[in-house]
């Protein structure tokens, strides 16, 4: 049992990262009932945007000082690609059959991956991402906080707080809630719902960039394929938490992150299941968790039943 606090902490950091990405799925779904399956690639683009800024800056600039600019660069790249995807790929298909935007998203994912692969310098294999130097912080004798996890553990609550206040208190946030609940009636109020949809994509893009930087710091590298599994995990988190609910997305991310960490730590100790534990199986356990939750609560942890939607 002595691994429990460490497992929770590692899981929390991983889960916060999933949660930041899951916000992008859930915001867009909540407003246009569209699953943006290219969102994983929006994350990847954010990572390369941040890396580009780091490479532009002189080596003498310490990582902590470069980080805000890297976040800005990553966010500009992610937001630009996410809003362009909305405008030119998804908006024309808004009244098309549901399969059309889905296929478009898959095409877009492949295109974005290939663009980075072909045109970003040396991106045919992984590119190194800066990491903080130094040992992990020793919180107590047996609990260590990785320096690079500190970033996501600070950034995720801040982002959530800002988003929660924005949605609940601002005029645009109110308009977002109205659009999510009843888009036609929102238009009758004078709300430009097209603009609201763009804002949802933009917020998702900005959060994706923060997640990409967190992932780069954790792994010490990024690559053109990184969006695939991250996107899949975060989508799982969004569904787990109740798609359409921003707090559900973060909660789903954290639950998923902890479950993954716990499966890596514990399952190998269960008699007869040794070979089902360890890192290679954690993705499987993530999806087992999803299936179990959806069997018990089809609407997800914090989701409303479909009947509650206007």
């Amino acid at each position, binding site marked *: 049992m002595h691994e429990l606090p460490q497992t929770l902490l590692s899981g929390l950091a991983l889960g916060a990262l999933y949660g930041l990405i899951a916000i992008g799925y859930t915001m867009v779904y909540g407003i246009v009932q569209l699953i943006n399956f290219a969102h994983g690639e929006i994350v990847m683009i954010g990572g390369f945007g941040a890396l580009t800024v780091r490479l532009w800056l002189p080596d003498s600039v310490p990582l902590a000082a470069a980080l805000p600019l890297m976040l800005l660069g990553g966010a500009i790249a992610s937001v630009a690609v996410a809003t362009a995807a909305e405008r030119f790929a998804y908006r024309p298909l808004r009244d098309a059959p549901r399969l059309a935007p889905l296929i478009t998203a898959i095409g877009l994912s492949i295109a974005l991956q290939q663009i980075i692969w072909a045109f970003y310098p040396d991106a045919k294999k992984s590119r190194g991402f800066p990491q903080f130097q130094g040992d992990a912080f020793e919180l107590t004798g047996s609990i260590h906080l990785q320096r690079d996890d500190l970033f996501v553990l600070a950034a995720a609550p801040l982002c959530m707080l800002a988003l929660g206040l924005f949605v609940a208190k601002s*005029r645009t946030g*109110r*308009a977002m*809630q*109205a659009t999510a*609940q*009843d888009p*036609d*009636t*929102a*238009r*009758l*109020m*004078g*709300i*430009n*719902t097209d603009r609201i949809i763009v804002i949802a994509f933009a917020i998702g893009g900005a959060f994706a960039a923060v997640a990409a930087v967190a992932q780069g710091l954790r792994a010490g590298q990024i690559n053109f394929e990184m969006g695939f599994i991250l996107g899949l995990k975060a989508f799982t988190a969004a569904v787990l938490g109740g798609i359409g609910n921003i707090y559900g997305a973060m909660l789903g991310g954290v639950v998923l992150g902890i479950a993954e960490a716990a499966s890596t730590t514990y399952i190998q100790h269960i008699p007869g299941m040794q070979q089902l534990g360890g890192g290679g199986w954690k993705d499987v356990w993530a999806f087992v968790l999803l299936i179990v939750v959806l069997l018990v609560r089809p609407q997800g942890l914090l989701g409303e039943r479909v009947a*509650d939607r*206007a």
Partner: protein
Amino acid sequence: MTALLEVDNLRVAYGKIEAVKGISFTVEAGEVVTLIGTNGAGKTTTLRTLSGLLTPTTGTIRFNGHPITGTPAHHIVALGLAHSPEGRHIFPRLTITENLQLGAFLRKDTTGITHDIHRAYELFPILGERAKQPAGTLSGGEQQMLAMGRALMSRPKLLMLDEPSMGLSPIMMRKIMDTIAELKASGTTILLVEQNAQAALSLADRGHVMEIGKIVLSGTGTDLLHDESVRKAYLGED
């Protein structure tokens, strides 16, 4: 003197199916005009086109002197055309106050908005008592009051009401109709779509009868109320 609303030869289709087949009518400032007709006649389609939610295939709509055909919905409400939609469509997970505030979304005069919210609570005291509750917890009649109050929050030059008495108890229906009469007395211009033809025609200055996408009969409220074919078809007499 041109009318506040002028609709000329309006046609609206859903794909290949034409729901409104060339209708023309006007609403003068200060008037209550009603559209009556059986289910599927095209009344809701007409209102949704006037407020910009649907785009007509042909025809023109002039509001307050401006052509508004093809203008997006969120600009039309700014011109002073408010629409309380069929089925009420309040925002169920926002509070009553927040619903009313959304009705004033394009207004900037904070004190005026606060004043109008209080006026809505005077008009419908039950809304004031429940101000902080999610609108989805209201009864059907209360939701209708909220939808009307919300539409009034934009201080419209023309208020369009689509079936405000639909699905309500007789007492609630009376209450809603009385409120419309009050609004009329205070000078509000109203385009009223109603299934309750008796109540609508008693209240209206003028009315139009719609059948499968066309206006088949027009007249003053009193004339239509006494018209034999109207009495047969819509007032349940034989």
